[in-house]
């Protein structure tokens, strides 16, 4: 296969894909999708949030879990970065702290797939010392 170097090469890939797949109807069932938001402000990035996001994108796709992975800003838990907010369909959002690859794997295997909570949740009632 030739190297992909131009938008025309990309288009060839796209056409191949388009003929193979049935377009996923994500937007029609937003309530059934797992939402993962990775904290990506200065604090998150400095702590490796990009690797965490990459892991979630790759792994959720690998395991064929219907999910949307996006970036979000700083949630104020800079000490616990990278932080990840996971919203399972029909449930409240849960924020996890110190999410490296190992933690991300645990979140996917235990929380997202089985719905069981794991250690490392930042309670929503948490307040900083100033509040």
């Amino acid at each position, binding site marked *: 296969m030739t190297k992909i170097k131009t938008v025309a090469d990309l288009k060839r890939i796209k056409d191949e894909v388009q003929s193979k797949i049935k377009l996923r109807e994500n937007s029609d069932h937003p309530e059934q999708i797992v939402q993962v938001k990775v904290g990506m402000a200065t604090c998150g990035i400095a702590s490796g949030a990009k690797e965490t996001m990459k892991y979630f994108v790759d792994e959720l796709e690998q395991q064929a879990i219907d999910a949307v992975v996006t970036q979000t800003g700083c*949630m104020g838990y800079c000490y616990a970065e990278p932080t990840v907010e996971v919203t399972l369909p029909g449930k409240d959002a849960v924020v996890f702290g110190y999410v490296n690859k190992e933690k991300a794997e645990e979140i996917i295997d235990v929380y997202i797939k089985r719905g069981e909570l794991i250690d490392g949740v930042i309670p929503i009632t948490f307040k900083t010392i100033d509040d």
Partner: protein
Amino acid sequence: MKTISEHVLDIVQNSVRAKATLIEIIVNENKENNLYTLVVKDNGCGMPEEILRQSTNPFFTSRKTRKVGLGLSLLKQNAEGANGSFTIDSVPGEGTLVKAVFQKSHLDRPPLGDIWNTWYYTLLSNPEIRLIYKHCTGAGSFEIDSKEIFDMLEGVSLSQKEVREAVIEMIINNLKELEVIN
């Protein structure tokens, strides 16, 4: 921040929060004058003089969630630490231009890093923003424009595995040809 791409990922968030619809990331490497320039330009809301003056103060932020704002401060520190300079210009209602110049050969000049992931992940979270990345060297230049990519995709998702891999491969192949990366 360890790499230029991490700085970009960070600085671009400022533009996103400024409601920009067009963000340009331009890296210019010049062997002759030994300069390595990073420009992030947006058409967001901009900021007035008094906020602009505070923007590289690490103890200033427009956020409510914390009391420090290190993004621009860290970039300024890295640029100045690599014998370079840092400027930020902004016009309220028109946009902001951040420019960091590094001495290209300086040991403390951060490497480029995985800029393709920066471009892709920023776009994945902000598909409505037109995101342009341009890299120039003495050997030539490469540009990727999200508008061109979305027009070509004709509705096929950017997050589709094959599409993602192809887009990232395209950026890497072009950067290799420019000898920006090995």
